């Protein structure tokens, strides 16, 4: 577990950093995919198999592909924007300070929480993290939220059509 944690963890951080420092948007997307896959590995380590699957299929498989399509459509053969001067003064310095400070604080917060060890795998309920258990949980206790997500997706579809759809439609 620990080994998985460390490897996947470092990969996730690297991927996230890569998104920020990449020179072109496509490189950022690739970095993000690395991040997502690393997280999926961490989910597996945390006994969330179904969720790891969802993460890979939906996030890496659908969302990131969508990103790639749009990037390809829009920024082909264009220079990345950050070549030019920025408009906001002091944003970079303040941003870095805030970020570093925030990171320190996050670690401090996490370290100061007195939460103890996670239970052993055997102590978990049977079928923990499985599709069956997930499905049961979702469609009984949280059925209402499930229906609402349908609305969210509907809103997204309509929104996209309204924003960038063809006029004749």
């Amino acid at each position: 577990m620990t080994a998985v944690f460390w490897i996947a963890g470092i990969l996730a951080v690297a991927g996230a950093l890569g998104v920020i420092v990449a020179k072109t948007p496509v490189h950022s997307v690739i970095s993000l995919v690395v991040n997502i896959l690393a997280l999926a590995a961490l989910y597996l380590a945390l006994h969330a198999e179904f969720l790891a699957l969802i993460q890979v299929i939906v996030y890496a498989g659908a969302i990131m592909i969508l990103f790639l399509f749009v990037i390809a459509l829009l920024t082909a053969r264009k220079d990345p924007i950050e070549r030019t001067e920025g408009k906001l003064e002091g944003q970079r310095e303040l941003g870095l300070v805030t970020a570093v400070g925030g990171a320190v604080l996050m670690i401090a917060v996490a370290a100061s929480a007195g939460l103890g060890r996670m239970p052993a795998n055997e102590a978990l309920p049977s079928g923990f993290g499985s599709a069956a258990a997930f499905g049961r949980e979702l469609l009984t206790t949280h059925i209402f939220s499930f229906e609402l997500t349908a609305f969210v997706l509907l809103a997204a579809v309509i929104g996209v059509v309204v924003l960038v759809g063809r006029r004749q439609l």
Partner: protein
Amino acid sequence: MIGDMVQAYLALSGILFVIGAAGLMLRRSPLVMLMCVEIMLNAANLAFVAFARHLGNMEGHIFTFLVITVAAAEVAIGLAIIVLLFRERDAADVDDVNTLRG
């Protein structure tokens, strides 16, 4: 071991979140900023899953699922807006989009 400590996962989640925030503050391309938002959402998901494991409760997984769904919808809309933005001007600098102010 560290791998058994939920606090380690929380720390990792925090660091990822901060990286996403930093990217949001520092980069000017709207596409990259949207990706940084995704990083932050993922960091939150990690925290949920870690707690679900710690408490032996599947509700964390459910919430993560919902977050992923909403993230998908949000990316769709966000990209649509970016497309519109790119239609107006060639180089999209998010600092140019500043007319909605108080």
